């Protein structure tokens, strides 16, 4: 293998790919990146057997070939040493020589025979702008359960509903649903992408603005753009029937400024107990929207917010963290909160935007 390419290119790609190498796996070759020089490009491949990635870098290939090099070593080198110029890579007796104008590095390679292939997903496919896909995932993924006791909910659930691609996550204490308008997407009964793989998918495609081809079957899903191919295993399971728990009617409604609520919640947090509990009291007749929290060691706090209120009075407690989380998905200035009794979930949504719905379960007192 012998080739020349731009440092800036290879550096970015190595940092991207390195995150997906297998750590702590029994097969040592999995913690390396496989460099494949063929045709007019250099391909980098890595996998942890749950995710697999292959990226392409334009390069001048003098001699084709491949070599596997430890991912952490490569990323360490490329994130520190070089300036913006061209780099020469050469495989000599299984070792990798890296040459630039100012440095010469020799790295020990690993046997690439044992480096696995990455599954090419065969199944239903559709195209979507990466911005839409990322927006959908980003709007909900923080709500998924982090424990892997129940793999079905430790995931982001994607399905279609009419002309929307719907993203859902829940950890059974709160639930986020985001609908993205997307024409031409085939009917999807449901794909469960493991939560652990979601952050990598976001990182790889987060900055990307191209069109992504998504291809999926019952076991695997892949995302590919011009130079990236990313594939993830999907969870074989059934997401709970969440639609039936979204309250259809409400007894109390509140509309208020997002910024007001955000500051009030942050203030309440200082006084909240170890369960992050904040109490909420809404009395539409007296036009009072009150947030309060108290902590035996610090003191207590009450904040009154301006809000448009209708319906019955209600009083309940909730975990303020769950509330704060959803602000990242709400882009409007004001938000609407709907209550339907002290023991059913609150429904939070942006005003005049039906694409996002967030449910929070109240706390027991």
């Amino acid at each position, binding site marked *: 293998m012998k080739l020349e390419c731009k440092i800036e290119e290879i550096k970015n790609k190595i940092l991207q790919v390195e995150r997906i190498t297998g750590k702590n796996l*029994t097969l040592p070759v999995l913690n390396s990146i496989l460099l494949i020089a063929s045709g007019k490009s250099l391909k980098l491949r890595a996998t942890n*057997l749950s995710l697999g990635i292959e990226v392409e870098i334009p390069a001048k290939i003098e001699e084709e070939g491949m070599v596997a090099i430890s991912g952490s070593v490569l990323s360490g080198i490329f994130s520190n040493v070089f300036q913006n110029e061209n780099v020469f890579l050469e495989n000599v007796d299984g070792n990798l020589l890296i040459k630039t104008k100012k440095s010469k590095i020799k790295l020990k390679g690993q046997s690439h025979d044992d480096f*696995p292939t990455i*599954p090419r997903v065969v199944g239903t496919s559709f195209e979507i702008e990466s911005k839409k896909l990322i927006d959908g995932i980003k709007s909900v993924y923080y709500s998924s359960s982090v424990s892997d006791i129940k*793999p079905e909910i430790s995931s982001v659930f994607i399905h279609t509903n009419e002309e929307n691609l719907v993203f859902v996550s*829940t950890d059974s204490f709160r639930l986020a649903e985001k609908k993205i308008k997307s024409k031409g997407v085939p009917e999807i009964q449901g794909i469960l992408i493991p939560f652990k793989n979601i952050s990598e998918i976001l990182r790889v495609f987060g900055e990307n603005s191209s069109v992504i081809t998504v291809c999926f079957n019952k076991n695997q899903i892949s995302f590919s753009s011009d130079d990236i191919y990313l*594939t993830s295993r999907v969870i074989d399971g059934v997401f709970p029937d969440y639609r*039936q728990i979204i309250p259809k009617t409400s007894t109390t409604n509140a509309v208020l400024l997002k910024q007001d609520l955000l500051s009030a919640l942050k203030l309440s947090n200082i006084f909240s107990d170890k*369960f992050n509990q904040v109490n909420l009291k809404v009395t539409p007749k007296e036009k009072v929207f009150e947030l309060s929290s108290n902590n035996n060691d610090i003191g207590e706090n009450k904040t009154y917010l301006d809000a448009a209120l209708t319906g019955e009075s209600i009083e309940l407690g909730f975990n303020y963290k769950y509330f704060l989380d959803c602000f990242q998905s709400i882009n409007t200035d004001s938000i609407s909160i709907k209550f339907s009794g002290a023991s059913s979930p609150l429904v939070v949504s942006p005003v005049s935007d039906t694409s996002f719905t967030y449910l929070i379960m109240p*706390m027991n007192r």
Partner: protein
Amino acid sequence: MNMNTKQLWKNCLVEIEAGISKANFSTWFKHTSIIKEDTGIIYIGVPNEFVRDWLINKYHKLITKTIADSYENMRAVEYSIIKIENNREAEREEVLPTGSEAYINKELPLKDLYINPEDNLNPRYRFDSFIVGGFNELAYAASQAIIDNPGTKYNPFFIYGGTGLGKTHLIQAVGNSIKEKYPNKKAHYMTLEKFATDFISSLQSNKANSFKEKYRKYDLLVIDDIQFIGKMEKIQEELFHTFNTFHEANKQIIFSSDKHPNYIPELADRLKSRFAAGMIVDISPPEYESRLAILKVKLQELNIDLDKEIVEYVASAVEGNIRELEGSLNIIVCQYRLKNRPLSLAEVKNLLKNNMKPKKNMAIKDVVKIVSEYYKLEETSVYEKTRKKEIVRARQVVMYLLREDFNVSYPLIGQKLGGKDHTTVIHSCIKIKNDLKNDPQLMQELEQIRIMFK
């Protein structure tokens, strides 16, 4: 050849392990198994696509050769992905309550979906758990014929019977069996209500065409509780067209209803005749022996041993539908577990006393009126002192119903029905009770009379 695939794979793994490095072995061969052997093709189950890809690319030759060495009938090896059951069930129960958050923060009432979203069939309904007795023999036989020849033998298949007699179980089991037997056939189960709401919402969003497409892509359509279709004219029309498309393409269609199609009110004639074109069978309430058999199977499932006496009592006391039978059994089992000792017959009787039948209040006069109307007799004749056979029978039925359904005391019944002695009343009740065990005609009569009470 009957071979033990588990043992075969174990032997092969030992050989494969010797040939490759330990790291490779544990990465690629952990969690693999032989799922099945079918006419010489060995299906190997692997945990994910990464493993499948690599086994095919790298180890296929080795695997094929190793298996071939110890199993000469092998023709090919295939790989398929299987779900690894996580062995954390026990852990799950322990972990959840310790999280302090779980204590204080209520969970969203999320329910697991056991129903396959693609076909709507509940995998729990299978023929393994379906008990066949005299009351549903015909329906069972017809459904087996349909599984063997879907779309051609009996199309449509129309099954009717009272609530809780296992109609849904049967039709879903047909769906599940067809799905298993013909993996490329698409089955779909729904209630009529779902069909109707789908239709209405498709009209609202101006997508009537996509509605037609949606259902017509299936090879087997199962529609439950079709009796509600009366009065829904538009739905009848749509169902009619869907039905025609299915029938022309020789695709099986199955309906269930609680009434014979002729008695579904306001059902269009064209649908009536189409329902009748295939096979119409009814499921009647289980007779005593079947109830006994059902109870025994349920007890076995629950792994509980009840006294023969008690089981027989429950089977004779809880008449009518299977759902009630299960309910009564659940009460007994719950008490059994609570008390942690076998229950006595008296206790069981006491437990079931309130659960057996809803006690309604109805004047004795009205009961007599309804029964005499049903048997087309003069109301007054029931009160008369006569031994005409048909009147005696009607009088006994009145007594039985008054006692069983309305809990009227024996002397009072006797007094109200023309000054009979209470022993006469007791005799009548016992007689009807015994007759019920082996007279389906009588059972149906009582069933219909009870409906008139409502």
